[in-house]
């Protein structure tokens, strides 16, 4: 076994030849085994690789455009014990990501241009490109608009008060109207605070069985329908992040059919895990059974399964998978949310919501592909070029482009355990499970950022 090593964006550009790699490029739908050459950080013809340059035998491996995560919590500044920009970027590189979009709910929040600039500066030598999503309102308080234009000039690629939905229709209308002028999207955390108040897991038979307060699907749908109505008026781009219900996805499908500029992402955990995981099940959504789930003494009420929006019913998870397959879902975004153990090894209602996802996103997707619930090309597109488009970036495997790619073994398996994770946190209910999909090489902007 090779020792894994991380690189940085500030390293020297790479030169190597990947021999016999299966290249999946969703830009043109191509999928073929060939040689792939990188010379001084740029994709080139194999003949251009100088003699003596490294040749990597890549039989059985897949090369794809580098992954782009639209929803990452890097926790710096403010909670560096859970994650830092450096450790989060390393986790991203380990997971095949070459770009992550940092959410602004840090402490202090990223609601001023100087703070946006500070994160970008700190990330300059990280193992992954970091883009910043600016806060919509000052202090994320949902009241006064932050200086959106100045933050855009400082580099913000989108805006969100993630963690909360914007509280009033009037505010959403004002934000969409203003962002329309900037050409940048609002990333909405669609959840009505009054309907979700006090809830800790998805409402349904399992919540009822466990005696846990249930989150109604209407909490998401009411905000999605409100925002779509306002996006129609504003003519602005609306991106709905971490959708978790079939009904909300259907609302997006209808809006798109009308030609509205509405996009959305779903998380790997809402595709793969179900509310039964709170009771202790560890069956993926595509293998879920309808049996009544009694809480398991060893895994029941596991704080690692507390996440917002909560893990869906199996039926909704399958609807989300179908949405990825039919293209209604633009992107798979992780909502990587690191938390230290003391925020999780507590009674369920007290557990901080969120789980890490950068290092397991590809593996959960590949588990779905193995089960026939997802198509490999669609998975790759939803992790790479489609999320990049939402923040106005292109990913290409064409000759002449800066190399930005991931190479992974789709069938090799690994065990999820703290020592195997580059993240500073290990809060995931996948701990102890074996998953398919091992990243062998990540190249961001022509630099090797991860290799194993």
């Amino acid at each position, binding site marked *: 076994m090779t020792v894994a090593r991380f690189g940085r964006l500030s390293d020297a550009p790479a030169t190597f030849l990947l021999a016999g790699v299966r290249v999946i490029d969703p830009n043109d739908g191509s999928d073929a085994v060939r040689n792939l050459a990188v010379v001084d950080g740029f994709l080139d013809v194999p003949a251009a690789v100088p003699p003596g340059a490294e040749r990597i035998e890549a039989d059985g491996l897949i090369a794809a455009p580098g992954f782009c995560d639209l929803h990452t919590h890097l926790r710096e500044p403010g909670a560096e014990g859970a994650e830092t920009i450096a450790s989060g970027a390393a986790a991203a590189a380990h997971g095949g990501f070459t770009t992550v979009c940092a959410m602004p709910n840090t402490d202090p929040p990223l609601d001023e241009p100087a703070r946006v600039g500070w994160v970008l500066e700190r990330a300059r030598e990280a193992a992954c490109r970091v883009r910043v999503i600016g806060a919509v309102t000052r202090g994320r308080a949902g009241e006064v608009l932050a200086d959106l234009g100045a933050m855009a000039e400082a580099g913000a690629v989108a805006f969100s008060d993630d963690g909360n939905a914007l509280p009033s229709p009037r505010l959403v209308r004002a934000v969409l109207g203003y962002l329309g002028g900037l050409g940048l999207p609002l990333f909405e955390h669609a959840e009505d605070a009054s309907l979700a108040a006090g809830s800790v897991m998805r409402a349904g038979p399992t919540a009822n069985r466990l005696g846990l307060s249930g989150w109604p699907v209407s909490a998401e749908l009411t905000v999605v329908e409100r925002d779509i109505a306002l996006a129609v008026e504003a003519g602005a781009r609306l991106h709905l992040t971490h959708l978790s219900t079939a009904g909300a996805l259907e609302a997006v499908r209808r809006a798109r059919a009308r030609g509205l500029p509405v996009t959305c992402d779903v998380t790997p955990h809402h595709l793969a895990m179900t509310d039964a995981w709170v009771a202790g099940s560890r069956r993926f959504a595509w293998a879920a059974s309808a049996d009544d789930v009694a809480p398991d003494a*060893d895994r029941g009420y596991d704080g690692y399964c507390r996440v917002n929006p909560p893990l869906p019913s199996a039926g909704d998870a399958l609807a989300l998978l179908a949405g990825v397959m039919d293209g209604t879902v633009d992107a798979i975004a992780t909502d990587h949310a690191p938390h230290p153990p003391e925020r999780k090894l507590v009674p369920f209602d007290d557990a901080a919501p969120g789980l890490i996802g950068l290092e397991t996103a590809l593996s959960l997707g590949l588990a779905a592909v193995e089960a026939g619930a997802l198509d490999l090309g669609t998975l790759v597109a939803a992790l790479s070029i489609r999320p990049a488009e939402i923040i106005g970036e292109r990913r290409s495997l064409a000759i002449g482009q800066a190399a930005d790619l991931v190479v992974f073994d789709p069938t090799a398996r690994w065990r999820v355990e703290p020592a195997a994770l580059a993240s500073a946190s290990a809060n995931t209910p996948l701990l102890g499970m074996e998953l398919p999909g091992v990243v062998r090489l990540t190249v961001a902007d022509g630099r090797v950022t991860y290799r194993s």
Partner: protein
Amino acid sequence: MIVEASSGAATRRHLLDVDGLSRIEIERICDLAVEMREARAARAYRSLLEAETVGLAFYEGSTRTRVSFELAAKALGATVVDLGVAGSSVGKGESLVDTLRTLERTGVTTVVLRHAISGAPYLAARSTGLRIVNGGDGTHAHPTQALADALTLRERFGSLEGMTVAIVGDIGHSRVARSNLHSLVILGARVRLGGPPAWVRGFDGRPGVEVARSLAEALDGVDAVMTLRVQLERSAGNGVPSLREYTTRWGLDETRMRLAAPGAPILHPGPTNEGVELTAELANGPRSLIGRQVENGVPIRMAVLALVTGAA
């Protein structure tokens, strides 16, 4: 019998809920409780648990459960420590797991845990080396209450097989109702639930359980009726418009009880709000088994402690 968690070095016994118990196991606990009641009267078995230190960790107020566990443990000779949450390090922000691990290091072997959050006993069982007895967790389970209720009904009817028991009130927020749903069905009874729609939502379709649309439908011909404390703080805007409206539509009195089978008893896990979910006349009248439920609490908890510790 009782749930065995496989995590940790040692396999230990816990009582986390009644849902994992078989009919034979529940019958055995009831039989043992009868034996314990006699033993207690005869002052026998007074050294059965002398090697055990039982900790009472009540993170939420309780009178009958805490007192009956304390008396049960002492009647069997255990050393008992009451964590007295208000006067402990919990007030200094110590986490549940850390507090229980501290108790474990001081020599406590078994903890009776009462907690406001559903599932807390599951966390305690897998995060410590203690045996955990659930003394009521959130809105999830109250297994020893359900066992005491099963014993009470068994004394009255001999067997619960084929009986129909109505449970009236805020089922959704009741750990007593949730545990009774399991134990009554396991013992062969059918359960009919009655209450405002928001309070009975989600229970339809469970095996052995039906949901009635009115109090009259809930009570029609049933063999026994159990009602629950209306959480006074939960009434406004959360299921019913007002307490008065609840009492008018779902409150129990002698007249309404005549819809049930002749002589059908009334049960209530306490504490009661007389004049809200049932009249004082009913609570204190000949149909009432409420006092007997309390009396059965001590022997049931003696039986549970003896079984969990492996002494019986």
